[in-house]
């Protein structure tokens, strides 16, 4: 989560941006209405949604950056610890084939152990889970922007397509059920 100061700053930014977006939208509405005719009028109306989504995305970007920073820190800290251990175990650079091979094996084993321990830890999994969640929040805004653009172009949106998929899924199930009943009746009649 963001600190209270960061939150205050983001809320202020969001309020200011939305206020000016709304006001500019209202102020330009009549002029737009005269200038943009036909299908383009729809885009002019929807453009406000795009700005709103972009503004809201900033809040999620802050959370995403924080989680991403922690993720890279976990990786780099683990790398440094593993490298430290390797340096302790192999203090001198090997200079013949056998020693190079052996030290490479040690390097792989040490790094594999350290990183597996990291990936196995609750701290890593928790941060990774939150990183993915914040990324999905950004993806949601992106989906909404895309939907606005598609809607403006009078094309089916993701949500509308999903309704079709859901309907198809339900229809397929009903057809399969009816087929089973019909087949059963045919078999019974054959007897």
């Amino acid at each position, binding site marked *: 989560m963001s600190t209270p100061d960061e939150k205050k700053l983001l809320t202020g930014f969001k309020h200011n941006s939305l206020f000016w977006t709304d006001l500019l939208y209202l102020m330009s509405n009549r002029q737009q209405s005269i200038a943009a005719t036909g299908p383009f009028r729809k885009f002019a109306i929807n453009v406000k949604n795009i700005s709103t989504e972009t503004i809201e995305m900033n809040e999620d970007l802050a959370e995403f950056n924080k989680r991403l920073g922690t993720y890279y820190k976990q990786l780099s800290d683990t790398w440094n610890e593993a490298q430290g251990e390797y340096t302790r175990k192999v203090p001198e650079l090997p200079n013949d*084939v056998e020693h*190079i091979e052996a030290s490479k094996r040690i390097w792989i084993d040490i790094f*594999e152990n350290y990183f597996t321990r990291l990936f196995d830890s609750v701290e890593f*999994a928790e941060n*990774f889970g939150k990183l993915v*969640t914040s990324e*999905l929040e950004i993806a949601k805004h992106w989906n909404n922007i895309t939907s606005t653009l598609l809607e403006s172009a009078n094309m089916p949106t993701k949500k509308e397509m999903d309704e079709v*998929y859901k309907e198809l899924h339900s229809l397929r199930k009903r057809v399969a059920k009816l087929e089973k009943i019909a087949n059963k009746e045919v078999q019974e009649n054959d007897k």
Partner: protein
Amino acid sequence: MTNEIRVDPKVIAEFIKLNANIFEAPNFAKSLEEVDLETTPYEVVYSEGKVRLLHFVPQVQRQLKTPLVIAYALVNRFHILDIHPRKSWVRNLLNQGIDVYLIDWGTPTQINRHEGFDDYVNGYMDNCVDYVLNESQSKRVSLQGYCTGGTLSTVYAALHTNKVQTLTLTAPIIDGRRDSTVVSNLAKHLDVDKLIDTLGNMPPEMMYYVFSILKPFEQGFEKYLNFFRNIHDKDYVDNFLRVEKWVSDTPPIPGELYRQWIKDVYQENLLINNNMYVAGKQVSLKNITMPLLTQVAVGDHLVSPECSMPIHYAVSSEDKTLKIYPTGHVGMIASSFSQKKVLPEFAQWLAQRS
């Protein structure tokens, strides 16, 4: 004072040789596009949506009357079970006189996002089993499930007991709480509702990420170094490319199926506690009464043995066998070891009960 670095000439020779091998690699190795993963001939005998039922062409006279239906995992494609003529799970069983059918789940797209356990178990799997029963004139099938296919087969066997003669579970995902793998650690902390509601299906790139953090240095560095070192070994290169092509072919997992799998198996652990519901029906492992063979691998870093083994104790079957092998998740099904040890034991177990 002089800073003199003394290097063994053999090191330089080795370095030059490795560079030459890297440079020459395209002359000795096919591109992944050119690698053909299908080694044993089969017929597509039934298909529904993207799911196909494959019937492998018998290699010898049929010895067992009960056909075997293999439910492959939801992760990657079925080709690992027939990856190389000398390491093929399917070919080995055919050579032992077993009639082999395999369910290929195909590559789902967004249109499949609403498909869940009900569609997979009571729909696709049940329709495939019905087809095999009708075609073979058998009363029951032998069912084998690998990895997540093992989870699906367990649910199927619990809900359709009268159609299953024997159940074989190879590294099945059963008790998520006991799973100590990296995969399970991430699954337990994933907001699966947000993932599926936003993206529809579990995307391949996220599946691939999970594989990438399993032994990243061995798999991401050593493996490729060895590939270039062995570039003149035709068999090594062929085998390497086949496995690489299989690894890189990761289809998405249908959203609702993934949601229930993660929640019911990893996060809430409902399956092993007989609290999982599919299409309103309780999945009770106590309903499983047919002979059960559970195969687990000690070195499995995708599904830990502790996650698979509880099924052995949870079912009502009186005839049950637990086999623990000193190998890994893939080694159990596609290796020289599986050819010499796992498959002969599996075929013998089937023969005694078919």
